[in-house]
């Protein structure tokens, strides 16, 4: 058992390292002019030159930088300010309870809801029209798809705040906030000062990797940018995606160059973020102990409450507006609500969505099951190594786990696609599950690792002493006791799989249409009512699994009080 467990870290590592490395090299080679499949066989910098002089390039780069850095900084600032002002309050407890459903919302569904909310003909304008605005027709504003990517920035920030909040919570749980706050205040410090001087310096190291993941994601996101981002030119990632899918095969070389450039851009941005962090900590070190007890920021502490309410309200409204549209039959501007309702779009939509939903479910379920087995194997191996006195380097492990989240998807998926074609693996169930596994693994690991590591080892000692078998003890004692967090981690993994857009597009070879790829392609120009039905399906599938993950363990152990928490 002991020696066999050692296979798991190796398997897990190769499950995501091999595809990513293969994909990166498979993208870099064509970027430098080598793609034998289309007859390009000499190495040169021609594609990069072409990329830099491309008329769409400067605008695309600008939009990417604005939305990438804007969304990251905004999300980071908001989540910190929210925790600072409401940590421990009733509003905070409400927010914590809402985090899981907020996180389960796929990015594409959220983006569509956001569009229906803020578009010139969206719910927000309808709320105040025509009474306040006098609009009888939607105004000629560019509140979505604006050329600077501001609506994209805002939507991404809104979607990432819950994720960063979740990371704040797990970081704060490791700090003794109540007594830190007590000591700070008994020394005369204000709440804001206590957070900036005592809490943040210790919290930020826990937030570093999640923030970098948000940065990498926001700089390179494709599905949300297709729905909400600028179109002429689009963001760099969308532009690259278009080149990769262009009918003219030579565009792929340009795409590969763009993808490689985007990879470099993300790498440099991460470096810049780390350098800025270093600079800020160095400059602030002396000021932290200068004794100043209050700050002007104390006066705007209430802003956190507003932000928290705003984040919850926007998410709720996104959901509501999708619901309204999905049941609408006649819904003219500027009516706040539809004048006629109908079920016809649901019946028609569900009819068409059956196969995509089935594919989504099977791929998600398989990837999640494979993921949970690998992750539990790794964690069990780690726990047993630790018992024998060998400590793994936690920081290094975390960087590895985060790798799939730090490398932009678009930067390596093309390479995987070409490799898959060479190996005749394109459009197969195996490759679909494999590519989803790459992104499912880190999230399962992140949600499960803390609980798993803190499992009281004495239960296993007792069980092994009684049964004489570590394997039996594991399946009959440890796994049932950990059922709740395991189920929750699986639900998270499933939600991540459902939300994948690019991997499905690139590896599916058109044979695998999931609910997400269908929703994104419909979002381009279909009837809003059809889009709403699809977006809701995309949202309800992971939500259903989350509910199952919450209720199944609770029901199984309904007569065991100690297992309820």
């Amino acid at each position, binding site marked *: 058992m002991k020696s066999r467990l050692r296979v798991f870290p190796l398997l897990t590592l190769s499950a995501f390292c091999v595809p990513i490395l293969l994909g990166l090299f498979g993208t870099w080679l064509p970027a430098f002019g080598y793609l034998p499949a289309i007859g390009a066989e000499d190495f040169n910098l021609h594609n990069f030159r072409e990329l830099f002089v491309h008329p769409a390039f400067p605008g695309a780069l600008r939009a990417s930088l604005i939305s990438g850095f804007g969304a990251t900084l905004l999300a980071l600032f908001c989540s910190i300010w929210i925790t600072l002002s409401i940590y421990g*309050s009733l509003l905070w407890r409400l927010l914590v309870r809402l985090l899981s459903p907020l996180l389960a919302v796929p990015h594409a569904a959220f983006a569509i809801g956001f569009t229906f909310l803020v578009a010139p003909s969206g719910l927000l304008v309808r709320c105040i029209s025509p009474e306040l605005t006098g609009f009888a027709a939607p105004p000629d504003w560019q509140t979505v798809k604006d050329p600077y990517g501001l609506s994209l920035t805002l939507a991404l920030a809104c979607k990432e705040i819950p994720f960063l909040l979740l990371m704040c919570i797990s970081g704060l749980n490791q700090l003794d906030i109540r007594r830190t706050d007590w000591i700070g205040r*008994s020394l005369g410090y204000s709440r804001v000062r206590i957070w900036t001087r005592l809490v943040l310096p*210790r919290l930020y190291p826990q937030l570093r990797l999640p923030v970098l993941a948000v940065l990498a994601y926001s700089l390179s996101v494709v599905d949300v940018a297709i729905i909400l981002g600028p179109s002429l030119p689009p963001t760099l990632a969308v532009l690259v995606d278009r080149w990769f899918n262009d009918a003219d095969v030579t565009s792929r070389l340009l795409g590969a160059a763009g993808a490689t450039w985007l990879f470099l851009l993300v790498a440099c941005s991460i470096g810049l973020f780390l350098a800025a962090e270093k600079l800020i900590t160095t400059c602030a070190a002396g000021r932290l*102990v200068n*004794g100043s007890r209050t700050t002007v920021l104390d006066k705007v502490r209430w802003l956190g409450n507003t932000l928290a309410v705003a984040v919850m309200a926007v998410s709720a409204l996104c959901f509501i507006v999708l619901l309204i549209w999905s049941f609408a039959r006649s819904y003219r501007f500027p009516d706040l609500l539809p004048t006629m309702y109908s079920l016809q779009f649901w019946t028609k939509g569900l009819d068409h969505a059956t196969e995509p939903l089935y594919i989504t479910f099977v791929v998600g379920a398989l990837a999640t099951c494979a993921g949970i087995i690998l992750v539990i194997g790794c964690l069990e191996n780690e726990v047993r190594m630790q018992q024998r006195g060998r400590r793994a380097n936690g920081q290094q492990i975390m960087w590895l786990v985060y790798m799939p989240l730090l490398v932009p998807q678009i930067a390596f998926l093309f390479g995987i696609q070409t490799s898959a074609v060479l190996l005749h693996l394109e459009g197969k169930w195996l490759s679909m599950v494999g590519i989803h596994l790459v992104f499912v693994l880190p999230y399962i690991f992140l949600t499960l690792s803390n609980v798993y590591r803190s499992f009281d080892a004495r239960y296993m000692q007792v069980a092994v002493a009684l049964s004489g078998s570590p394997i039996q003890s594991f399946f009959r004692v440890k796994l049932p006791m950990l059922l709740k967090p395991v189920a929750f981690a699986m639900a998270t993994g499933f939600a991540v799989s459902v939300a994948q857009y690019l991997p499905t597009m690139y590896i599916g070879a058109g044979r695998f249409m999931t609910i997400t790829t269908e929703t994104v392609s419909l979002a381009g120009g279909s009837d809003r009512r059809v889009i709403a039905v699809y977006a809701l399906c995309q949202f309800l599938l992971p939500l259903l699994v989350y509910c199952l993950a919450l209720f199944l363990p609770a029901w199984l152990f309904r007569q065991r009080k100690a297992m309820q928490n």
Partner: protein
Amino acid sequence: MSLELEKVQVRYRGRTLFEPVTISIPKGEIATVMGPSGCGKSTLLAAIAGNLEHGFRVDGRISLNGRELHDTAMENRQVGILFQDDLLFPHFDVYGNLAFGLPAGLKRDVKEQRIMTALERAGLEDFARRDVATLSGGQKARVSLLRTILAEPEAVLLDEPFSRLDMVLRASFREFVHEQTRQRDIPALLVTHDEQDSCGGRIYELRGEELE
């Protein structure tokens, strides 16, 4: 004058946690509140410091040097606290931890002089730039108390500060606490379940009321 508690009681959801206590501590004295664990000793300290969690209510009067504490925000009460865990801030060194306690607006040399004097009195003059994680239990306890004292509180609360220390350290740290509060001439309130922890002042008993 000094720290006065008059018929103080804490309620949570309509229940009282302990029988009303009346305590009067003159300057320079360390009074002791005794009671078994779980009888609400820490809650009493939280009531005096103003740090009760949501849902708790305080009845009775608490005053410090004639000031009513009831409506004063916690950060303005000038009541220092010392826990059994040192709770030194791990991202600062010893000097940084002490500097954090000092009032704002002091000149650099005044600051340095105050910190060094405090460290010398505690026999820790060579430890200014040490990482707090490398200190021994007794040293941590001393630095922690120095930090509380340097903030110039008008009263100090001690939440079983000796219980993590062994017998020998306990005696010397108790002496150190006594010396520091006497020097600053401020009242201190110690809660403990161990009679031997008492520092010579009056001893009060806290009788808890049964909680389910």
